[in-house]
Structures are given as C-alpha cells and as structure tokens.
C-alpha cells in the first residue's frame, strides 16, 4: 500500500494542508482532493497541456509534477486568474475572440498565456504559436486562440 504523506501546498495565495499518496501528481491533488477541477486531465502524459499550471510563475505540467515534490513553490491554477470575480485580460480576450469551443483546453491555455504575456508583452502571432505549442485544442480552434492572445497583449489582431 502506498505510504500517505502530509504536507502543505501554496495554491493561489493560500496555504493548504494535503495528505496524499507519494505517487499523487499535483493534478490529482488539485482535482480529486481539493476539488479544484479547473485544471483538466487529458492525456496524463504531459502531451496535451490541459493540466498546465504555474509553478513560481512558470508553466509546468500538473500531471508530470508530483505534489509531494512541489514544496515551497507557489502554484497558480486557472482558479487563481480572476480577481474578485473579474476575469483576467487573457480570459476576457478568449471570450471576446470566440476562442472557446468545448473549453477543455482553455484552463491550460489561460495559464500558459498569462505567463507568456508577462514575459513577452508585445509578441508576434508566431511567438504566440510557439508559446502555445504544448497546448492541444482538439476542436482545433487555434486561429481564435492566437487572435485572443494578440488582443490580450493589446495589439491589433
């Protein structure tokens, strides 16, 4: 039987106590223990990007990050993006551009773009595509997603 570990996670500015098997991924803990189901479980192999969260502000795969190995690093999920009920600029731009179809990839896209636009305030569409290369949209709605990123950056679409 897997040993259970007790530890703390810093998620969206809150410190939360968690007890999980050592094998639990950050995605498992977020979804099935903390009920934060924004991050999605797609492939569970690091390919699809639907589980992407920020670790100390940097996009990582929730499914390839062991929760017990997170330690003191700050986790930001899609639930931490809106402030007081107001959507983030990326979330609003995705809505405005019509970039949400089934929505399954959207949480990963949101956190990936938030980190990318923070580091690249005026990206080209090509740079956006590279930044999103690890976020699969099986509705294949990429054109609108890239448009949304450009809108969010404040540039002309």
């Amino acid at each position, binding site marked *: 039987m897997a040993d259970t570990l007790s530890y703390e996670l810093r998620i969206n500015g809150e410190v939360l106590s968690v007890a999980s098997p050592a094998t639990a991924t950050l995605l498992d803990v977020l979804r099935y223990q903390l009920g934060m189901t924004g991050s999605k479980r797609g492939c569970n192999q690091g390919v699809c990007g639907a589980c992407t969260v920020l670790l100390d502000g940097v996009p990582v*795969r929730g499914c*390839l990050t062991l929760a017990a*190995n997170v*330690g003191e690093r700050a986790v930001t999920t899609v639930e931490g993006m809106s402030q007081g009920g107001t959507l983030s600029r990326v979330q609003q731009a995705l809505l405005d551009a019509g970039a949400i179809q089934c929505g399954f990839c959207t949480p990963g896209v949101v956190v990936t773009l938030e980190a990318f636009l923070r580091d690249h305030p005026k990206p080209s569409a090509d740079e956006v595509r590279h*930044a999103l290369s*690890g976020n699969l949209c099986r509705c294949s709605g990429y054109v609108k997603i890239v448009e949304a990123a450009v809108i969010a950056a404040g540039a002309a679409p």
Partner: protein
Amino acid sequence: MRFASPETIADAVRLLSEEGARCLSGGQSLVAMMNADLVAPSTLVSLRRIGELGRIEVGSDGGLSIGAMATHATVAGLKPASAGAELVIAAAGAIGHPAIRNQGTIGGSIAHADPAADYPTAIVCAESTVVVAGASGQRRVPAADFFKGFYETALGPGEIVIAVEVPAGAAGARGHYEKFALIDGDFAVVSVAVIIGMSGGRCSFARLAIGACAAAPVRDPAAEAQLIGTPLDEAALDGAADLLVGRCDPIDDFRGSASYRLKLVPRLLKRAVNAAKQKAERAHG
C-alpha cells in the same frame, strides 16, 4: 511508495542504494511512466533540493559544465561562447514544449537515454563527459561510452548523473543541431548534431552524430576524417553520409520506418553541415 528529498549528493546516493529506489529529477519521463503504470519505485528520491546540481559554469574557452538539475529552459537560454555550447544549447531548445522545458533536466534526459531524445546526440557529438556519483565516489564517463542502448546507460545501481561537461570544440568552429520531427515538440524521427570548423574555405574540424537511428547516438570518426580538407561539397558530404548510414540501425515505429529514417540521414546531415559551415565562414571569412 516512499518519498525523500535529500539536500546532498551523499544522502541521495545513500537513499538510492535501496532496492527499487529511483531518483526523480524533472519527472517529465519518470512521472509519465508512473502514470502509465510502467514503473512503480519503492522509494522516490527527489534531487530538487540538492543545490549544487543546478549549477552551470562557463569555462574561459566557452566550454560548459552543466549541473544535472539544470532545466532545458535554463540551458536553452544560455548565450553560447563556443561551438560545443552552441550545439548543446540548440538541442536543449529543441526538446518538447515550453512547459516540458521548464521542468525537464539534462541529467534526467540523459539518464533516461531515449535514443530519440535531443541531448544524447548533441553531447556525444560535442565529446562531452558525464560526471556520475555513486556510493564509491565520483567518476567521469565519456558521453560516447555513457549511452549503451535503448534506455540503457553506463550508470551502475544507485549511481546518479551530477553534471555534463561540454568542451568548447575547436576555436572558430560552429555547432548546429538539426531535428526532424513529425510535429513540434515531439521526439525526433532523425536528428543530426554537427560541429564544423572552416579554414581558407576548407573544413578543418568536423564532429558528426546521428540520433534516433540506433540504440544510441551514432558517430563515425572515419566519416569526420573524410571531410577534413574538403570544401564540404556534395561529394564529400555524400561520402561521409554513406559511412554514417552504414553504422545506423534504426527501428520501425509510428514516427517512421527504418528505411525512411535512413533516407533522411544524408539530407539532414547536409542541412546541418551547411548551416554550421555558413556560420563558421561568416565568422572567419
């Protein structure tokens, strides 16, 4: 499964001496394999808190010493000051997607030893040295001897990679990494790593390695020797490619058939050599 997060190499090695223990670096392959029920370590030893494993040093000649826990994103962001560094930095930037590069590490990548991964081919081409630590201390393994087969390395039980030392390569030479993949971020169908030096319009230095075409990266000193003194024209490159293709033994898989891979080798080799040659000539006339 038990979980440990030691702060020194000595403690990590001690914990890894237990049967069934595995070390966790970036986890981008190991956790995926655990998720797929392919491995179930009895103890997982995280190397994350061992500060010295994240260290990167740049030598006065532009060579690199890269700590095992340096992420692909960190290495890809370095400014190259030598041909060896240029090659390895380019390979780091070709691995996976941004989120994978933010967590995956050089030590983890080479210890996993997927023959289609990017680092192995690059570090073999650059004649790098893998620094390994175990219960009986540290040892240094030439990269060419480190990769033994599919997912098989020279690491003994309980040993870990602690650094990769990348020599500069010849002064004035330039490195290039050419990767052919079906989609962005995937493993290579075939990859080619080269370091090329030019002098007076002729090749003065050549290192060539082929990835994803055998159980380990392929090099052939005879192919490299053939290029020396030539202007790297079509005939010279055809001759070197023939020798390298003769040493390849690719598999058929969903990324491509063995015969397709062998067909790609000469084409990608030419592309890589020409790119490195042009950079070397621009720098040195």
